[in-house]
C-alpha cells in the first residue's frame, strides 16, 4: 500500500533530519499565535524527541493505523506532552499545532526530493497528511482528558472547601451550606460533620441552609439523612436559615419535618444551642459598645 511513501519518508528523514528539525522548530517559535506558556527549551527537546520516535515508528511500514504497537511510543510521548501543556495552561489548538506545523517542512522536501514523479509525491503528501492529522487529533484528545481530570479534581476540592464545619462554641458546631445539596455534597458534608462531632465531642450541630437555593424532596431527604446520622452519634441537629417561601414550599410538598428542630436564623439557632448547653448570658448595658 504505502511502501513508496514509507521509503520516501525514511530516506527524507535520515538525510535531512537536522534541516527538517530546525525548520519545524522555527515554525513553532515564530507562530504569532504561540502561547507563551510553553518555554522555548521544551519546544526544542520535544521536537527532537518526536522526530526520533517518529522515524523509528514510520520505518516499520505502517503509516495508517496509529493504534498499532509500533506507534505506541509516539502516542505515549504525545499524550505526555499534551498533559504537560494542558496543565501549563496552553490551548488545545496550540498543542495540536505541534504536530500540524511539521507538515510544511516535511512536504516541502517530499515535493522536491528523491526523484519521485509528481503524482507519486502527491500521493505521499496525502498519506503523510492523513497520518499527521491522526497524531494531531490524538494530542487534542489527550489534552481534553487531562483538562477533564483537572476540572474533576478542582470540583472535588471546591466542594470540600465550600462545606466547612466550624466549631462556634464548646459543644456546638455550625455548617453553612451553600449551593445545591446533591448526593455527592451531602456525602461530603455528612462525613466532615460526623468526624468533627467525634473530634470535638460536640452535642449540637447547626445546619444553615440560607445559601441553598431550592429545597425539594431530594434536598429534604438528604437533610433528614444527615440529621438521622447525627443522632446516631449522640448529637442533635438544628436546621436554620429557612426562608419563609421555602418553609411554605416544604409544607405544600407535604414533607414531614416535625421531628427536626428548625430556626429561622442562624442567630436563633445559636441561642437555642447555647441555652441547651446550659449557658446563660447577661448583657451589661453600661459597657455595651454596640446598640441594637
Amino acid at each position, binding site marked *: 500500500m504505502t511502501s513508496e511513501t514509507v521509503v520516501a519518508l525514511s530516506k527524507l528523514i535520515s538525510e535531512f533530519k537536522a534541516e527538517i528539525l530546525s525548520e519545524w522548530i522555527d515554525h513553532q517559535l515564530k507562530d504569532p499565535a504561540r502561547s507563551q506558556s510553553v518555554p522555548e527549551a521544551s519546544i526544542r527537546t520535544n521536537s527532537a524527541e518526536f522526530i526520533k520516535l517518529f522515524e523509528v515508528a514510520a520505518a516499520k511500514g505502517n503509516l495508517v493505523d496509529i493504534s498499532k504497537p509500533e506507534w505506541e511510543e509516539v502516542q505515549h510521548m504525545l499524550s505526555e506532552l499534551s498533559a504537560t501543556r494542558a496543565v501549563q495552561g496552553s490551548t488545545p489548538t496550540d498543542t495540536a499545532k505541534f504536530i500540524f506545523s511539521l507538515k510544511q517542512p516535511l512536504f516541502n522536501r517530499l515535493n522536491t526530493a528523491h526523484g519521485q514523479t509528481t503524482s507519486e509525491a502527491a500521493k505521499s503528501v496525502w498519506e503523510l497528511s492523513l497520518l499527521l492529522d491522526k497524531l494531531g487529533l490524538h494530542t487534542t484528545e489527550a489534552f481534553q482528558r487531562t483538562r477533564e481530570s483537572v476540572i474533576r479534581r478542582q470540583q472535588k476540592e471546591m466542594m470540600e472547601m465550600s462545606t466547612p464545619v466550624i466549631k462556634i462554641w464548646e459543644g456546638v458546631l455550625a455548617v453553612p451550606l451553600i449551593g445545591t445539596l446533591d448526593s455527592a455534597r451531602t456525602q461530603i458534608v455528612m462525613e466532615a460533620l460526623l468526624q468533627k462531632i467525634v473530634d470535638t465531642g460536640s452535642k449540637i450541630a447547626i445546619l444553615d441552609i440560607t445559601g441553598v*437555593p*431550592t*429545597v*425539594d*424532596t*431530594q434536598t*429534604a*431527604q438528604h437533610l433528614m439523612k444527615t440529621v438521622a446520622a447525627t443522632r446516631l452519634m449522640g448529637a442533635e441537629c438544628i436546621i436554620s436559615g429557612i426562608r*419563609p*417561601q*421555602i418553609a*411554605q*414550599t416544604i409544607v*405544600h*410538598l*407535604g*414533607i414531614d419535618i416535625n421531628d427536626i428542630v428548625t430556626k429561622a436564623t442562624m442567630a436563633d439557632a445559636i441561642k437555642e444551642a447555647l441555652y441547651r448547653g446550659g449557658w446563660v448570658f447577661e448583657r451589661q448595658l453600661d459597657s455595651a459598645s454596640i446598640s441594637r
Partner: protein
Amino acid sequence: MRSAVKMHAEDIGFSKLNQTKIVTTASELGRNVLEHGNGGRVMIEHIKELDRSGLRMIFQDEGPGIDNVEKALVDGYTSKCGLGLGLSGSKRLMDDFELVSQPNNGTTITVTKWT
C-alpha cells in the same frame, strides 16, 4: 434548567413565593424525567390570555410510563427510594396539573402557574 426556569418566572413577574414554588416543581418533575423516565425534554412557555398570564412547563419523556397514575399521585408512593412526594407535591404547588402516561409509552406532565 433550574436557573432558566427561575429567570422566566422572574421575568413574568411572579412573587418570590411563587418563583420558589415554580422552581421547586421544575426540580421535582425534571428529576423524575431523569430518574424514572430515562431522560427527556422540558419546555417552558409564557402564556398570555385575555385576562391572565402565566408560566407553563411541559416535561416529556419516552420512558417506561406510569401504569397506575392514581397510585403514583398518592403522597409517599415511590417505586425507588425517594420520598414519593414529587408528583403529589408538584400538583399542590402549581395551579394546573395534567399527567398523560401509558405503560411503555412515555410520560408527559404539563403544569401551569398563573400570576
